[in-house]
Structure formats: structure tokens, C-alpha cells
């Protein structure tokens, strides 16, 4: 699948970093299909963090360097216990350093977009004030939102794929297309 529009020669085009955090990708059909639908472009970097750091020893300097090279930081992860998988928490704790990402002189991430792509087993209805989980996904994501804000990043609402366990083949194709278009729209957005 090759996209028809490669604006690689346009300086204005934002660079997207997709940070995938999934400890059991081999078991997650939803996430595999999302990955497959990501367009190929020089402006999109896809990184599979559980593959890079299987023993949780994160190369902080490298991660920071890569963050600096991108404008949109997209975290793709499943929703575990109302939060992210442990390696992503570890990554946040270690990479977003005081004096680099926040605090005095911590301006490295200024203005970059923070977006989460989240797959949930539960359906949309379960994540409502009157639903099974009693809260909306957005409410559960408050810590991430504050993190982004503290780093002076532009926090955007998450891209959600819900009820992954009830999805049929047809639904999967629909969701794929939706994700693909979402990312293309990010690429087209004028940066700066």
C-alpha cells in the first residue's frame, strides 16, 4: 500500500513519531491491523519500544534525540488497568527529564503534539459516566494530559479503537481506514 501523496519535498510537512508500546503484540489483532494501516512515508517513524527495550533499560539520550526530530508524538498502546503498559510509564519517567522536558530550561518539547492511539477491550458504552467503568476514557487519561501540559506540549484527544474483542473482519477494515486517514490528516496539517 503506497500512498499517492508524498510531500517529502515540502519543508512544511510535520514529522510524525509513532511510539508503539505493546507487551503482547503477537496476541493483539487490533494493534497489528492498526500498524498495517499506517502509511509509508519518510515523515513517519514507527518505533516498537517493547522490541527495542525488552529488558526495560531505556536509552534516554537516544529517545530524547528522536523526540527532537519530530513534531507529532503519537503513543500507540492498549489500555491496561485504566492506564498504559509499564514500559510506557518507564519511558515517561526516564525520558521526560527535569531540565530537558519540563522545569527550568526544560523546553525541548515545546509545541509538539501529544496524541494517544488507544485500543480498549471494553466497548464505547462501558466508558461512560453511567457505563460499566463509571468514567470516560478522557477522564482516565488525565495524568497523561497533565504530563503533556507540563512539558508545554499540545495535548490532543486520543484516537480510540474500542471493543476490540467484539470486532469482526469488516469492522477491522473500517477501523484501519479510519486510522490511516487520521494519520494522513496529521501529515497534511501545516506545522508551526
Amino acid at each position, binding site marked *: 500500500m503506497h500512498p499517492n501523496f508524498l510531500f517529502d519535498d515540502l519543508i512544511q510537512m510535520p514529522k510524525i513519531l509513532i511510539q508503539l508500546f505493546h*507487551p*503482547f*503484540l*503477537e*496476541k493483539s489483532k487490533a494493534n497489528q491491523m492498526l500498524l498495517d494501516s499506517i502509511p509509508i512515508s519518510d515523515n513517519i517513524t514507527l518505533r516498537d519500544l*517493547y*522490541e*527495542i527495550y*525488552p*529488558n526495560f533499560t531505556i536509552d534516554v539520550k537516544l529517545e530524547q534525540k528522536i523526540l527532537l526530530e519530530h513534531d507529532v508524538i503519537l503513543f500507540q498502546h492498549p489500555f491496561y488497568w485504566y492506564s498504559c503498559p509499564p514500559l510506557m510509564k518507564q519511558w515517561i519517567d526516564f525520558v521526560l527529564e527535569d531540565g530537558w522536558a519540563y522545569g527550568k530550561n526544560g523546553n525541548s518539547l515545546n509545541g509538539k503534539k501529544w496524541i494517544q492511539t488507544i485500543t480498549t*477491550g*471494553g*466497548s464505547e458504552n*462501558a466508558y461512560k459516566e453511567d457505563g*460499566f*467503568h463509571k468514567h470516560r476514557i478522557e477522564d482516565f487519561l488525565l495524568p497523561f494530559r497533565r504530563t503533556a501540559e507540563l512539558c508545554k506540549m499540545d495535548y490532543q484527544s486520543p484516537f480510540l479503537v474500542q*471493543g476490540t*474483542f*467484539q470486532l469482526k473482519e469488516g469492522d477491522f477494515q473500517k477501523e484501519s481506514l479510519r486510522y490511516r486517514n487520521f494519520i494522513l490528516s496529521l501529515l497534511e496539517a501545516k506545522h508551526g
Partner: protein
Amino acid sequence: MGEVNFFIQAIIYLTSAIIMVPIANRLGLGSVLGYLVAGIVIGPFVFGFVGTEGKDLLHFAEFGVVMMLFAIGLELELNLLWRLKFWLLGLGGLQLVLTTVFVFLFSIGFQFSWKSSIALGFILSLSSTAIVLQTLKEKGLMKSISGQASFSILLFQDMAVIPILAIFPMLSEGDVITNDHGHSLVDHLPGYQKTLVVLFVVIGIILIGRYILSPIFRLIAKSGSREIFTGASLLLVIAISVLMTSVGVSAALGTFLAGVVLASSEFRHELESNIEPFKGLLLGLFFLSVGASMELPVVFQHPMKIVGIVVGIIFLKALVLLLLGFLFKLPLDQNLYMALALSQVGEFSFVLFGYSEGLGIFDKDTIVILVACVALSMAFTPILLLLYEKTIFEALQSKAPKKQTTQTLEKEENPVIICGFGRFGNMVGRFLRSNGIGITILDYDADRVEMLGRFGFKVFFGDATRIELLESAGLEHAKVLIAALDHPEKQHELIRNVKHHYPNLQIVARAGDREEAYDLKEMGLSFIYRETRETAVKLGGDVLKILGTRAYAAERAKNLFLAHDDETFHELFDLRKDRVQYISLAKQRNSELERLMFVDLGKEDELDLDSWSEMERM
């Protein structure tokens, strides 16, 4: 010899060897004696399975000796010789000369002719490479001072065999009973031409070995199969023997020369390992036939004489060695050990006795008695060493710290002491050092110590099993002792010593394999590390990844496996004496592990149920 008869013979010889050699090895007497006794047992005077054809066999088996010399030649690396030159020539040379002189004087006193006295001197000055090296290896003393000294002496003796073989024909008394080495092609030539032909052949061997053999072997190695290479190695040895005997030089000398020429080639080890089994078996056959052809009645007629000679030989040889040890400033305990270890007469004396019988240097009865003496002297070595270790050696060890032969340790006060800085200790040391931990390193390999010194590692030379050395290395200030000696016996000794004198010091120890690890656990250690475990599992994990498993899944699989392996190790520990139960539990644990892995890697479908979405639907 009929076909059937030949096989029957082979069965008898091999069976006796298979029974006796392991027994002899078990008793620490070395396989040479095992073969010898096996030969005596099947010989005409005990069971009489084999008759007098022992003699014919001897000629065939002598080819083992030729191969042995080829192997000795292969081992002669010039740089090793150069490094040991001082020990070799000094210690080795003097040992041979002095022992020969003393034996010569004695036998002149016993009415031997001067020629046979010289021959006897040469024969008795040799020690048993096989027995001594094996003992040193078993005791882990190869790298110690006594080990190095012994090795040098043995190496010199091995090299001296060649000139000795050349001198022997000049020592023959009167008529030579030719050993029937075929007809020499050069018999009809006048003397100077003979010499020229021999020279030509020798130079030819050197040139061919240097410039032609390596490419040929390379070709064979590339295109041929393994057994063709073995065939080529055999062909080489046989061809050279035939060539040399046809110009009237001993086959042993020729193959030795070929060995030396090939010692520097890249095929050295390959050749060695190819020839090894043939050499071993033929030599075994040789010792067997020596045993089978021994005239036991003659031996039983002179028991006192034989005992006297044996004691005399051992005493004399040990004395000469002790003297030289003092001269070369060996520490007393090491010196005594070396003297006793080398006090027997070597297996090559059997070859020389056979040779000298053909040359008519000794009469038959003398040879029978002397062979018995040599065999007995070999049998005494392990017994003597055992006695020495249990009595004098201990006493010497427990004395106040002696003068260090190499260097005195200044008082070190590091929290960690590493004993043994080989492959394993080296890694540990580098890791700790890079984390800013002060370490004191002890190692018993002089070369390694010197090399590490050049890399800027401060390593102390010394035997870590000596508690006083450890103490001067700052044992009382240390918090952790890392026992990483390669040698299980030494390792145990070290741990026992430290546990006894410093029960509160934490010991972490390297083990080679599961069995060794059990031994260490038995000694009450709780920090035991099997050398290759993690590396092997890491490799396995990488293979999983190559085959497409995700990195984090592989990581979990490794950790799961290791944790399970730890548990199993402790469970099996209690059962390790009971083979049947041990195996059944091990099997059970293995299948359990497989199931665990299966579950973790998500190969069981029912696990894919997401309980949350189940609950949400309620």
C-alpha cells in the same frame, strides 16, 4: 595367522585392555600400567590366552611408538621452546645428564660393561610423560612452579629420545641381531654416499613439509571428507617411516622430523587429533605385548633384587631432581613434589629395552628384570605422591608463611577478592571495576598475570588455596570473595579454607556444570553460578528472535526458564544421589516448563478471552 584367529586375538587383547585400563586409571596408576598388567594377565604365564606371538605383535605395535614421536614432533612449538629455554636446557638437560652419570657409575659397580651402563643410564633417566602429565592435570598443578618445571624436564626428555635412539646402535655388543627393518636400499653404497642420501632425504622431508604438505592438506580439508583427512595423516606417517627405513634411518627419527616441520602449520591440531586414537591404541598394544612377553618366572626368582633396584632408582632419581630444584630455587614443597612426581622410569624405556635387545646390549633375563622394575617404579608414583600430600606437604603448608617466590603482596584493603582471573573471573572483575568497586585479583598462571599487567590490571601471582596468601591479600578486610578457579578440586580447597577461617565472609562461586554446582551447594554455599548458563539461554533467546518471536516475549521466556531452572536445581539437589528418582523428577519438571512456556507465549486459545469485556457485558 588365520582370519578367525586374528579376530579372536583382537577380542582377547581388547577385552583385557578394556578391563584393566579403567581399573588402573581408577587407582591412579595410569593407563600404561593397566596395559602392562593386562598383558601379563593374558600372557603365557597367567592365563596363557596368547602365546609367544607377543613378539610379532611387538613389531607391529612399535609403529605406535613411531606415531608417538610424530606427535611429540608436532607439539614442539618453537616459541614454547624458546620461552622455556632456561628451564629446558638447565633443568631438563642437567637432570638427564646427572641421572645418566649416576646410573652409569652404579651399573659399572654392578659389573655391567661400560656400553650397556651408558644405555641403562639413558633408559633410566627418562620419566613417564603420560603418568606425570596426567597427575599434574588432575591435581590442577600444570601452571604451578612444580608443574612448569616437571613439564620442562619431560619435554627435554622427549626431545632427547631422538639422539638416544641414534646413539644406541653404537652401544651394541658384538653381533647385532637386526630388527629386520626390511632391506635398506643404500646397503651397497659406500659410507659417504649413504650419508649424502640420508641428508638428501632429510632435507627433502623438511622442504616438502614446509612447502607442499600444507597446500595438499588444505585441498583435502576443503574437498575431502573427514576420514580422508585421517587417511592422509596416516599415509603421511607411514610413508615417511618407509622412506626413512629404506635409506637406513630409524622411522622414529623421520616421523619426528616431519612432526617438527608440521608443528608450525595450521593443521597441527587436526593432524594430532587424527593420529591420536591410532597412536593411543597402538601404544596400548605395545605395552600389552611388553606385558605379554614378560618372563614372570624370572621375575619371581629375584624378588629382593627387583625391590632393591626399584627403591634405588626412585631414590636416585628423586635425589637428582631435588638437588636441581634447590639449584633452580624452587620452593621446598614444590621441589619435593616435582622430585617424587618424576621419580619413576618412563614408558619409553620399554621401547628402548626392546630396541636394545635387538642390538644385543642387554641379555634377555636382565631386560625382563629391568622391565619389571620400571613397571613397579611407575606403580609407586601415585602412592608416593599420596603419602607426600598427606604428610610432609601438609606440614610444609602449615608452617609460617614462606618467602614468596614471586612477589609479596602489599596490604590490600579492597572489599572484593577475585581468585582466578580466567575467562570467567576476568568478566566479573571488569564489570565490578567499571562500577568503581575495588578488587584484588589473585591468579596462578604466570603468563596470564604478566599479560594482564600489561593491560593495566593489577593481578597478584599466587596459589589462592593458601590461606596466608589470601590473608596478605586482605581477606580480613574483604566483604566478598569470588571463587572463580577453573579447577574443581582447587576451588573446593579454596572454599573450605576460607569457610573454615572466615565463616562470616560472603563467598560467591563459579561452577562448571550442574554436578559442580551441586558440590558447591553441598559445601553450604548459596551463591553459585554455572558458568555457561546465562550465556546459553541468551543465545537461545536470540534464536527465538531470529525465528520470529518478539523481543519482549523472548525476554520473558528466558527469565521464566532461568527461574524455573533455579527451582529445579534446588529440588533436584536432594535427589541427586538417587538416579531413578532424579531422572523422573527432572522429566516432570521439564514438561511442566514446556507447559508454562506454552501458556506464556499465548499458544493456548482459551487465554485470549478478555475478562474485562466479559464483565462489561454482565
